[in-house]
């Protein structure tokens, strides 16, 4: 078969596209590298033990830390989880148990809609429901906003993971005379639990980095506070405030805060990946 000029051109085109695709991957990794590089370079020097143990210092005094903001973020995450995990898991159970039901499709659609609602809009919702009636910014309102953001993630993860549990598990339980709820709580849910917990971790990692829904719900707090009915500091809002300030000291603190955020996200992602790998192997082993 003779190779014509036409064939050569086709091959060259194909080659060019392949190179473009490879270049795209490199192009996406450049900002990732740059962000990680700058965050570590700017943030690491400011990341002394004091950063984790001390309170923010006033302008002009170098040093200080974000201890209150870190505790605040943990409290907000705890509140969010307390709200979203039970509701999310039970909703996921409903979706996977009653697949064809009309409420089920509506809920599934609602979860998808909720997942796409901009975080700032969820902030307005939490403000209207939890701040306006009490005329006070509170940690509870911030937790509500983050919880609403976590909810769709947990619902869908639970549903998908429950569907992976082999049908024989359910049949076995029902054959032994278990009611449906008993089969779910004692056999099916425990089988999917490691995966669901991973999903919860991933959802927590995602909302831990949220700033917008906290701006007018939990606000910020310069002082040490763990009260749920008062405004509370959070790592993200603190970084936002510092980044927008004109002071070099505060900029350094902002980078250090960003380093802590990135490090937590990385840890969560790697952890989730590790657990997922093990789950994959487990499933391959038992089924």
């Amino acid at each position, binding site marked *: 078969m003779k190779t014509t000029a036409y064939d050569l051109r*086709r*091959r060259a*085109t194909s080659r060019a596209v*392949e190179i473009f*695709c*490879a270049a*795209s991957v490199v192009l*996406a*990794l450049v*900002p990732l590298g*740059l*962000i990680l590089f700058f965050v570590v370079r700017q943030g690491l020097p400011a990341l002394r033990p004091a950063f984790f143990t001390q309170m923010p210092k006033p302008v002009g005094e170098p040093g200080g830390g974000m201890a209150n903001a870190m505790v605040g973020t943990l409290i907000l995450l705890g509140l969010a989880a307390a709200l979203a995990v039970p509701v999310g898991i*039970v*909703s996921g*159970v*409903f979706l996977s*148990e*009653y697949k064809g039901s009309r*409420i089920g499709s509506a*809920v599934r659609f609602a979860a998808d809609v*909720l997942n*796409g*609602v*901009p975080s*700032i*809009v*969820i*902030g*307005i919702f939490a403000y*209207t429901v939890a701040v306006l009636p009490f005329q006070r910014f509170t940690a509870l309102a911030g937790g509500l906003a983050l919880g609403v953001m976590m*909810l*769709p*993630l947990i*619902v*869908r*993860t639970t549903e*998908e993971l429950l569907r992976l549990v082999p049908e024989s598990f359910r049949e076995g339980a029902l054959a032994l005379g278990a009611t*449906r709820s008993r089969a779910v709580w004692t056999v099916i849910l425990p089988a999917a639990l490691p*995966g669901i917990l991973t*999903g919860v971790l*991933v959802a927590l*990692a*995602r909302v*831990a980095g949220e*700033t*917008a829904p906290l701006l*007018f719900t939990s*606000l910020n707090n310069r002082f040490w506070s763990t009260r749920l009915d008062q405004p509370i500091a959070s790592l*993200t809002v603190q970084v*936002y405030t510092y*980044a927008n300030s004109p002071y070099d000291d505060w900029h350094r603190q*902002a*980078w250090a805060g960003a380093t802590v*955020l990135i490090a937590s*996200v*990385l840890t969560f*992602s790697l952890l989730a*990946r590790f657990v*997922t790998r093990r789950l*994959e192997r487990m499933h391959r082993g038992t089924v």
Partner: protein
Amino acid sequence: MSKHDDKLFRLVTAIVAASVLLVVVGIAATLIQGSWLSLRQFGFSFWRTRTWDPVAGQFGALPFIWGTLYSSLLALLLSTPVALGIAVFLAELSPRLLRQPLIFLTELLAAIPSIVYGLWGIFVLVPVVRSLEAATPEWLRRVPLFSGPPLGVGMLAAALILAVMITPFSAAVAREILRAVPTSQREAAYALGATRWEAIRLALYYGRTGIIGAVMLGLGRALGETIAVTMVIGNNPQVSASLFAPQYTMAAVIANEFTEAADDLYLHALVEIGLVLFLITIVVNALSRLLLWRVADKPVAVAPSAAAPVAAAA
């Protein structure tokens, strides 16, 4: 007895699940109720006028809608070719050994918090953009697209950062779509003597609905993105085609002014912007979902970031 238990179980779980529905309805209701004054006073002129003057009680939201749509579309324009390139590389071309690590790294981009993008944007990206703008030749600056002083903060910086932020989302979904295209499609192409690109083009064409869905999912993300954009776009309400001009978005104005809104009308005007943002993102996301559902029977992973590996454990 057990039948009774089963009914109760169904009822209780259904009620809990319905709360998800209730939250969505609740969001819509609070937005409408919270923007009532502004809806009644300004009607449609809210969306056509461009004066935003809280002191005089004049509220026109055109600059914010413009800023949101313009920045999102620019970001889409920048990110789509790259996202598709990534999807094709990871689904079709990548050496086996590299695939998983590369998937992980590209999705890590989606896991970086918005605030970190913003911080990096202010202190690293904006200065670079500023020097780029300053280096723009004089004749080019006469084009409206590049007019205005080189400030650094503005539409270009916002579009760039948005593009980086949405690329992993579109890429992850487009990759899933490509992997769902039957191998027989490619084999048929190869059997007819197609080159690699010709076979890939066929696969892209086969999955076109889903690919469009993937791109729209990215659009939905861009429209609602708040903090990173707020930090680099310059926050100046004006309708300008210039990439160099500082502008404003719907999400940004809510983030900046919500706690400052002193009177009811001001607050209601801000909530109305939230209402429209809510409606726009619902339409875009619903369209995207519809397109994706038509391709894959089972819904594609809701969010990439680290959630994807959990769903992918299937």
